């Protein structure tokens, strides 16, 4: 069996070179497939299981951006050397993508065994790296698959490892996941939802629902937040907690968002003019410089006043590419669209960000609101946020208000805006019109008395 250390200096055999990664000297993708094919062929008469895995470096891109390309290459070299020395004679390590490595263990037959081996690799990679005078840290996720089926091709095996890798990355950094049949089922379910969602978006079947935002003191509605709702003709009601992440991952969020904004602004046009519409932008939209243009062209088409529109973004959304997000936020604010920071206080809340970005409004996460009556820390945090917003000239809305006592407490602290089931659940455009008509009649009625 071949050793993992390939001789790249001596014989410049063209076939050999074609299977070698020029940066690290490890085998490349072609080599990885070649090894799998060979192993399967070698064992054709008496097939035995073997294990493969794909390693993805978590957080390599930011390091590359921060320290520069050549420092990035240097880290990749260090990574390769560590991985290479962690392999035994029979197994091989290859580099199959920018920051992706793949390995093959011919003598690993069980799930537990490959898991242990992959964990060892992650540990080896987690030690600090020298970058000039500084050090950097990396973590890695690994997806593994075992060759258990005679009729399986290397391509199928790799796609299983990729499925496992996807699960590993989703469950957090530094994880190992071995492919299982259930993942296939989950992947099929996601694929079904993705397909149905694509159809629904192009057929215009994702609907905006609207949840009232009120002035806490007067309890008058001041605006509505638009929330996506989808009932598929085949799948039935699909929770936004399910379809929004899928839309985000599979690149459907852009078209879906445009559909929603168009429908939402068409509905909001009919509302009394003092009411605003609040609309969420997702993380992937904040790295797309066309987002601002899309929004403006929709407003132009539907004739909705930009000054009545508020865009909500989250800190996670800003984080992946702050420069891009900042530019989009500036563009939006220039035409009079207000921008608010959503879910404040639970993510990676950075006060520096509040200084760099100009937010018009801040929304206090429901986590603080729900415990405002029970614990002192939540109370203090809310009061501190309110004081900070006053100083920075930002409006505030407290999210997730579920009862009168919470609302009263927030008024007492000087919080202006509120949102939550206590004031109203999200309902569709028609029901929202009904709600407004009732509120208007109620107001007339109150005047008449």
């Amino acid at each position: 069996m071949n050793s993992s250390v390939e001789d790249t200096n001596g014989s410049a055999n063209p076939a050999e070179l074609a299977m070698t990664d020029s940066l690290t000297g490890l085998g490349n993708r072609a080599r990885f497939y070649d090894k799998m094919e060979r192993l399967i062929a070698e064992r054709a008469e008496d097939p035995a299981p073997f294990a493969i895995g794909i390693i993805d470096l978590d957080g390599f891109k930011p390091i590359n951006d921060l320290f520069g390309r050549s420092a990035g290459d240097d880290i990749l070299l260090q990574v390769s050397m560590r991985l290479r020395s962690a392999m035994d004679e029979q197994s091989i390590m290859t580099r199959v993508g920018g920051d992706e490595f793949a390995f093959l263990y011919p003598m690993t037959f069980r799930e537990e065994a490959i898991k242990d081996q992959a964990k060892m690799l992650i540990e080896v990679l987690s030690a600090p790296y020298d970058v000039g005078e500084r050090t950097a840290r990396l973590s890695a996720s690994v997806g593994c698959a075992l060759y258990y089926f005679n009729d399986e091709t290397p391509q199928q095996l790799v796609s299983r490892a990729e499925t496992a890798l996807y699960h590993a990355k989703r469950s957090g950094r530094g994880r190992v996941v071995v492919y299982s049949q259930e993942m296939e089922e989950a992947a099929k379910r996601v694929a079904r939802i993705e397909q149905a969602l694509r159809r629904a978006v192009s057929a215009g079947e994702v609907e905006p629902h609207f949840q009232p935002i009120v002035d806490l003191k007067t309890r008058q509605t001041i605006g509505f937040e638009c929330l996506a709702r989808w009932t598929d003709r085949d799948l039935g009601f699909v929770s936004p907690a399910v379809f929004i992440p899928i839309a985000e991952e599979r690149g459907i969020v852009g078209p879906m968002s445009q559909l929603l904004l168009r429908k939402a602004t068409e509905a909001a046009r009919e509302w009394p003019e003092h009411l605003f519409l609040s609309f969420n932008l997702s993380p992937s939209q904040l790295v797309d410089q066309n987002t601002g243009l899309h929004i403006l062209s929709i407003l132009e088409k539907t004739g909705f006043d930009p000054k009545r529109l508020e865009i909500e973004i989250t800190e996670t959304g800003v984080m992946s590419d702050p420069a891009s997000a900042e530019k989009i936020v500036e563009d939006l604010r220039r035409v009079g669209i207000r921008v608010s920071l959503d879910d404040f206080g639970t993510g990676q809340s950075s006060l520096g960000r509040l200084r760099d970005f100009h937010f018009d409004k801040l929304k206090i996460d429901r986590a603080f609101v729900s415990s405002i009556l029970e614990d002192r820390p939540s109370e203090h945090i809310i009061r501190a946020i309110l004081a900070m917003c006053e100083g920075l000239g930002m409006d505030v809305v407290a999210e997730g208000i579920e009862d009168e006592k919470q609302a009263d407490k927030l008024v007492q602290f000087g919080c202006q805006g509120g949102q939550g089931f206590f004031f109203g659940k999200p309902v569709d455009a028609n029901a929202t019109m009904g709600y407004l008509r009732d509120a208007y009649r109620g107001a007339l009625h109150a005047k008449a008395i």
Partner: protein
Amino acid sequence: MTGNNGAIDVLIAEDNDVNQMVFSFIMEELGLTFEIAANGQEAVAKYQQFQPPLIVMDVSMPVMNGLEATQKIRELEASSGSKVAIIAATAHALKGDSERCLEAGMDDYIAKPISPDKLKEKLDHWRNLAPPAVING
């Protein structure tokens, strides 16, 4: 016949080094006692020596293949009156190998490469079905 009745849980007949390791790992993990025979002839001898309730038999082996070994064991059984469950391990389950195994007197078959889950399933099934040890004179 030696009186070693029930000394091991499973007899594995397998000539390939790698697959011997695969079987060993899985057996250890399942906590089963086992013996390995490297060809059909050895399998027949160890069958007589250990009287296992269950045999996993590779089909293609040197000296004597799994089909021949099975026929030999079935002949020996005819005189003793006992019955061992034999699971064929075959690389070509899809290409008619399975039918040949059953014709040769095997009870079941499992496709290679062997996965722990598949093997465990088969072993559980046949161990539960295995008749109580026949007391013979």
